[in-house]
């Protein structure tokens, strides 16, 4: 039988790139929730989890610094991602996780007669190795894990609509990335029905063939999860995220990067002993973005199914 430590885990860790282009020289987000959608559930030797996660991400808020700006162009930007992820515990301490993704982007500007642009295709893949030096036991309420991962540009990053579309409309970033990850969990009781969960990760983004690099990213999450019984749990948390400006060559792209603080609620039902269903969301609380004007996250919500073998 599967066993998840804490309700937080990957379920509440959904986070996306947070901004989109508003000006001629701006672009900052591939809109792909890869790292935080990865399944990291497997803990006991031989455990295997497979999950399917979707997220709908609306990127239509127009912001100048931390100030909301009315958008008269009627711009609507949406990214929809589907991720299949697996995690497998090699030992009680070592596990590996991997995911593949499919991404759809839509960009509509209602004030323009040239209509909307849609792209879809296979996105990036991620592989993550995780080591858990401290695990929760009946005699220990702390858990600490470390991870090292790679993002692999496995597919389309040069889709065109006559001409090659901007990086944020491509399913794949077309660039490698290195991921450092760590997570800490504290169980408030012996049964670990109430837990505190914190994660931190850093992604170093490389350049694609067009010399474009999304900004490096730091993401911090802290939340509390409550397992209300054998079938239902929920969690609430806050996610702080900071990205550097995107760059092309050695030059930063204006109006990209910034800081975001989001409220992240999530609920989870165990439909059977092996099958979990989850819903989660992300609601911006505060943001302070670089440059004069950026489109950024309005909200996002996600759905997940996870099966344990």
């Amino acid at each position: 039988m599967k066993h998840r430590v804490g309700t937080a885990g990957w379920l509440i860790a959904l986070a996306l790139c947070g901004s989109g282009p508003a000006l001629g020289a701006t672009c900052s987000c591939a809109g792909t929730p890869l790292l935080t959608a990865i399944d990291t559930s497997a803990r006991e030797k031989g455990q295997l989890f497979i999950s399917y996660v979707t997220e709908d991400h609306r990127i239509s808020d127009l912001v100048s610094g931390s100030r909301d700006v009315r958008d008269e162009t009627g711009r609507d930007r949406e990214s929809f991602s589907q991720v299949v992820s697996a995690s497998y515990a090699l030992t009680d301490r070592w596990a590996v996780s991997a995911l593949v993704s499919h991404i759809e982007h839509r960009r509509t500007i209602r004030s323009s007669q040239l209509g909307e642009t849609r792209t879809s295709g296979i996105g990036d893949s991620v592989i993550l190795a995780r080591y858990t030096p401290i695990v929760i036991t009946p005699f220990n309420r702390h858990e600490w894990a470390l991870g090292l991962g790679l993002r692999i540009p496995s597919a389309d990053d040069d889709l065109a609509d006559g001409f090659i579309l901007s990086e944020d409309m491509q399913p794949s970033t077309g660039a490698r990335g290195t991921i450092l990850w760590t997570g800490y969990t504290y169980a408030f009781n012996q049964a670990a029905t109430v837990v505190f969960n914190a994660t931190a990760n850093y992604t170093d983004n490389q350049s694609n063939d067009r010399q474009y690099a999304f900004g490096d990213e730091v993401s911090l999450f802290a939340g509390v999860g409550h397992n209300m019984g054998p079938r239902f749990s929920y969690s609430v948390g806050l996610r702080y995220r900071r990205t550097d400006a995107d760059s092309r060559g050695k030059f930063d792209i204006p109006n990209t990067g910034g800081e975001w603080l989001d409220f992240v609620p999530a609920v989870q039902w165990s439909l059977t002993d092996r099958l979990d269903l989850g819903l989660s969301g992300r609601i911006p609380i505060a943001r302070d973005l670089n440059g004069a004007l950026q489109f950024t996250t309005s909200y996002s919500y996600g759905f997940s199914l996870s099966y344990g073998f």
Partner: protein
Amino acid sequence: MSVRVPQSGSSLPASRICLAVLIVLLVKTAAAGPQPLANLNSGLNDAWFSPTTPGQGFLLVVFPNIQQVFVAWFTYDTERPPQDVAAILGDPGHRWLTAQGPYQGTRADLTLFVTRGGVFNAPTPVPNTDSAGEGTLTLEFADCTQGMVTYNLAGSGLSGEIPIQRVADDNVALCETLAASEPMACERPAPDLSHGIDNPSVLEGGATLPNDEVFDAGPGPDGIPPLEDPQFVQGGASLAPSELVVGVKIGDQIRAYPHNILNWHEIVNDRFTVNGTPEGGTISYCPLTGSAVLWQDLDICCDASFGTTGLLHNSNLILYDRATGSFWSQMLEQSVFGNQITAIPKRLQVIETTWATWRAMYPDTLLLSEDTGFSRDYNDYPYGTFRTDNSLLWPVNNEDDDRLGRKERVLGINVGDASRVYPISGFASDIEVLNERVGAMDVVVIGSSGLNLGAVYNRELADCTKLQFEPVQDQLPVVMRDNLGSDWDAFGVALSGPLAGTQLQKTNSYIAFWFAWTAFFPGADIRQ
């Protein structure tokens, strides 16, 4: 009968003398060649064809009084229809195309229409044509006997040239008589039709630009919103004197479009009144290349305004016209994609200078209002330190040409294959005037680093008079005086003196950042 010819002392039959006279006349005629044309005339009204493509032909009608020309092209589909397709009358493969529009000199650049849907000699169904046209047809005549038809039906993937001649020569004499009655134009070089290659090839993908040189910058079409109904104010006390403006003078309408607003909108679709007639004009300014141009309404149809595509070529704005959806390169000033491909807009002069200089030249100017209907902070520059640092946000051609700083503002001019730039900061602080020759054109260059001003015109008048200019200080809007004693403004208009009212010919020129000019026009000379 014979005639005595005393000089030779011999006699020749009269028939031989007549033959000799005829030969002399023929030789003289052949040496003179056909009567060259200065303008299309009604002697060209005729049926024309090419012997190499028999079975198709052109009917041409010139209307000299209204400077218009009409062409009917009777031809066929590109393939034979299936054999089981039959026509009651004629052939199911028949096609007829028409073109009409104004001509200039011996050339007419026309929109080509295809008519569909009618039946023989019946009021209904009403035949229809795509009002935007389906391509272009250029008609050009060197003399009264031969011409050239150049067509481009981009939607059908058809383009080419057809040399044409008359079916019969009856009207040649009329044409040559009309041509002889007109004064021939002098040899002043005609302005180039384009900054770059006049008839660039259409590449794979249907554009004249290589696909890998065009970038989607992210905002999407009209994501940078053009201004459609601009409002103006008088005074403009809140605008900093050093702020750059794009100055426009059309008739007696004088307007300034400040960079701080254009940075956020890039396009202003404006309306002017010229001699009581409303006319449209589009001001575009690309903040990434620092270039501003003014195009008159396209002669296409209906909505002749422009929008932003969200695409960049050499970091430069690519516009689209709302009538046909064709894409236009701002700095090439030419359509690069769509059914208007290779078309060139009608261009008018703008003067980019500081608000202080512009207001000193035109105190009653109108200023584009910040009340644009958009929530933008016009005190904020949207591209960080881009206009002053050395960065390039998108790949550009020839980016290693470091003869000048990348963001150095230069006044550039193209004449044929010749390209020259004049750094604005390289002009004297007072008004400086240079009488120069660029390529095959004698030009006058006006510049001032103190006034932050630059413009260049053809200094050869239509009657081939070549003027010499000298600067005039402290008498704005007058900036120069010619050798005949006329005073001229920065728009190349003589305000007083014997040439008062004369307009110098516009050149292919504007101000841009150096990196952009050398990306589009590599190898440009730099004024030393």
